[in-house]
């Protein structure tokens, strides 16, 4: 049993290591891509910071507080993207027959899909989000519980985005060219939750809580870190629910994944 759980992880590690080795065998192009990716990502937060040169608060939150929100999902989506970004290419795997090949290998399909062509290039996003997050840290009046909530928040955030990536990539089992569809939810949801939910209509806040529960891994725990109650009036205990939201999303994602694989029809040639 332990072997059943450990094996896929070990196998993931082995494959990732080989891909990194392959990537590093062309150091020049690697360095260029990393720098490029970091610059693109850096601009992302700069845009928000520039906005604050003409306003002091947005929806009742200052720049550092928004940086906290930004960092929480930014690190999560960065970790998930780095670890399993290839899952977005599922449609390509179906079209090219690669998925058939993977299905004949003794490693769970999800592990193979997630590790295929792993690239360190994606670290650019984590780096940038971490910098923003660290810059935001002094705004919090740290206590041991707050440290715990913050750590759990980051872990849940990574897990939740992991689940969302898998969930929305499954659509490609049915329509193979739908990778943009997944991005609308994952990156789109991420972009929305970079702002305090108070700037949106109440419906959007509720949707980001109960439908696409990204608010659970930044908005609510960040409110706790900042010692504030929800301006939308939702109960304070939601602030501790980030692991539950992540677990729910992952469960749904794995169920949909299994259905997708069982209904997979391969290609005619």
């Amino acid at each position: 049993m332990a072997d059943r759980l450990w094996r896929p992880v070990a196998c993931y590690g082995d494959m990732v290591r080989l891909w990194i080795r392959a990537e590093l065998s062309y150091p020049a192009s690697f360095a260029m891509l990393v720098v490029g990716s970091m610059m693109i990502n850096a601009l992302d937060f700069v845009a928000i910071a520039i906005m604050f040169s003409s306003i002091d608060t947005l929806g009742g939150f200052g720049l550092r507080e928004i940086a906290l929100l930004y960092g929480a999902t930014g690190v999560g989506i960065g970790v998930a993207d780095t670890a399993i970004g290839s899952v977005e290419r599922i449609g390509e795997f179906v079209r090219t027959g690669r998925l058939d090949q993977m299905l004949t290998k003794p490693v769970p399909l999800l592990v193979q899909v997630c590790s295929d062509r792993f690239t360190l290039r994606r670290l650019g996003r984590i780096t940038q989000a971490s910098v923003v997050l660290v810059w935001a840290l002094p705004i919090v009046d740290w206590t041991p519980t707050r440290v715990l909530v913050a750590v759990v928040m980051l872990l849940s955030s990574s897990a939740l985005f992991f689940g969302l990536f898998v969930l929305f990539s499954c659509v490609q089992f049915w329509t193979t060219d739908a990778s943009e569809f997944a991005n609308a939810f994952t990156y789109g949801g991420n972009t929305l939750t970079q702002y305090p939910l108070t700037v949106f209509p109440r419906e959007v806040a509720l949707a980001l809580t109960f439908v696409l529960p990204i608010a659970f891994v930044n908005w609510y725990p960040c409110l706790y870190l900042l010692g504030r109650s929800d301006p939308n009036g939702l109960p304070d205990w939601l602030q501790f629910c980030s692991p539950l939201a992540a677990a729910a999303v992952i469960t749904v994602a794995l169920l949909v994944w299994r259905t997708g694989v069982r209904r997979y029809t391969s290609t005619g040639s």
Partner: protein
Amino acid sequence: MPLIDVAGLERTFVVRRRAGFMRRSKSVVRAVQDLTFSIEAGEMVGYIGPNGAGKSTTIKMLTGILVPTSGELRVAGLEPSRQRTDLARRIGVVFGQRTTLWWDLPLRDSFELLQKIYRVPDQRFRENLDRFVELLDLGDQLDTPVRQLSLGQRMRGDITAALLHDPEILYLDEPTIGLDVVSKGRLREFLRALNAERGTTLLLTTHDLQDIEALCDRVIVIDHGTSVYDGTLAGLHAQGGSTRTLVVDLVDTGPPIDVPGAEVRKVEGPRQWLSFPADASAAPLVAAVASAYDVADLSIQEPDIEDVIRELYSHGA
């Protein structure tokens, strides 16, 4: 118990076709239906049939890639789609049209990844690799990225990749597609040796009947998703071996030749193909044709396996 056991297997696909603007119509394709056969360990079986007969679909079910719509299916005692990863260790698959290797990696790295995936012990991995590299003459290509390999080199790489973990069963879906005569010959020799030395069971689909003649004692012919012949190659000859062909080159293009005891199969300019019963003598036929038409040349073709199979297909028995 047979190593591969298939009974009443069926697989359908729902296909959506465009039917005017923004409208789709659904139809069901029966790729495999009522298919029954079994294969014992150590057999080399040729699995043949026309395009779209359901060969690849069958192999995909045998490997667990596709879930059957209905029917019984056991491979090495396992149910492929439910126990796919357990089965995967015991089988090797080569899809001639596709590669299992990683496009951007050198062959050697692809093999190493596969070693990890199949957990092949280092010692065994090196032995196998050395042996296949030598037999398939891959030594010079090991450090070349797969995308730079020629088709034949890549195919040899794929076959090595499918065998590194010592599978009991090797499925080959058109492994000789696009290979030149020399490479084909070498590959056949390699597969024969593999079967003789390791007892690897082989299931091979191909459109090149010489592959079958060189390798397989047994053939299963499939058409419209169901098996229309299962037996020895000799038996297949006997079954359809009832006609021979007289090829007549006329001096001029003319209407189809009309002589008793033979019928025209094909006309191509001045050349015509006449088929007549294999047990009848050709002499009176040749005389009849020569006396009634201006003949430039004549030759007789013995029944060959391709004709037999064409016959089987067209009757859809």
